């Protein structure tokens, strides 16, 4: 399951950890969290949100008009939170393998 989460999707989910956000706020937060690596356009973001909603990882929280602009807020579901946690755990384990290898002295035999 976790293997199907791409980096933009991961940061889209991560952006919602603190609570519901509207589209542009999600894109901005994903950009910040990824240190500028993930830059989502509105089309890409809403494509991802649609897929995540269909998979039950994200849900529409509410919609409102602010300064004449439509804003739809999405929130993380329990399943989304769980998936994100599993994916983060998987990445920690994957990173640990490489970090352990780098920590060993060069040419060492364990």
């Amino acid at each position, binding site marked *: 399951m976790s293997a199907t989460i791409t980096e933009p999707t991961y940061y889209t989910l991560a952006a919602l950890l603190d609570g519901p956000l509207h*589209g542009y706020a999600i894109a901005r937060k994903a950009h910040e969290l990824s240190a500028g690596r993930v830059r989502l356009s509105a089309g890409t973001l*809403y*494509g991802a949100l649609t897929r995540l909603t269909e998979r039950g990882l994200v849900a529409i929280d509410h919609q409102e008009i602010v300064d004449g602009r439509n804003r739809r807020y999405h929130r993380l579901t329990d399943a989304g939170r769980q998936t994100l946690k599993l994916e983060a755990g998987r990445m920690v384990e994957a990173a640990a393998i490489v970090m352990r290898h780098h920590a060993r002295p060069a040419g060492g035999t364990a």
Partner: protein
Amino acid sequence: MITDWLLRVAGRALPASRRPSDGPVVHDCARDMIDDGHSSIIREAGGLIWLGLAWRTNAAWSEVRGGPWRGAAAAIALPLGLLGVAIWIAAAPQPVGGGWPGLWWMALLGGLVSAVAAIALGHQRTALAGSLVALVPVAHDLWVQAGAGPGARVDLPLADGWLPLSGAWALPGVLLVVAARLTPRRDLRRASARVTVVVTVVVLATIGGPAISAAALGATVVTLSVGATAGGVLVARAAPTHLGGASRCGVLVAAAGLPVSAWAGAVAWSAHFDHGLGPIGLAGAVGAVLLGLVGLARRGGNLSN
């Protein structure tokens, strides 16, 4: 101003069914990104077009995947089988009375007739067995044509041309096997009307088929194929339930169009197809399948938006 206009034009890529609910939200989100310098107009317009294409593709795929294919396949079993019987009786090795009609032709026709009878009676296993037997000559023909086995390929004389067995019957034959597998079991008394139709078609084809002159047969085939195609399109357009009716009609038109177009091509061009599925038959078959899909798409709601 230009930004709004460009985004609105790009937003036309979104399916009409989603435009009222999702269009303004995505448009305003794109506008926010451009205004804050987070993104460019071109990038956002491209993103909207991409999103529209993705949503349309998903909608089209779920329409096709969710179509009543099982019902459609079951509904075409009898017409398809009857069409096969009529074609292959008309394309009998000639002269039928005096000479050996050919083992493969007999296997094909025997399988088809038993499949059609079993479909009419609602006997699923016999229908499946008959349609599978009818596929054996097709498989043999393909095998020979591929250069993998000895023997002659099976081309049957039809009017002034030759009808390649595998080219004309491979796809409809496979479709008939699927349809036979799904044929509903029927009570014998209620099947009597179907049995009458089957017997009538077989008798008429046997009596009339080989005796018809080449010119008359060619004209009949072309007329029938054009008429069947036009009729299928008309029914598809008028289908009351948009997806169910269209799927059935689409499959029916495609299934009927395949052998009929190959047949019409062989007759109209009076040509011998040296390589099995000749270009005319292939073009006709592809055209018929496309026509069926268009019939499906036209009635599929989201597809045409």
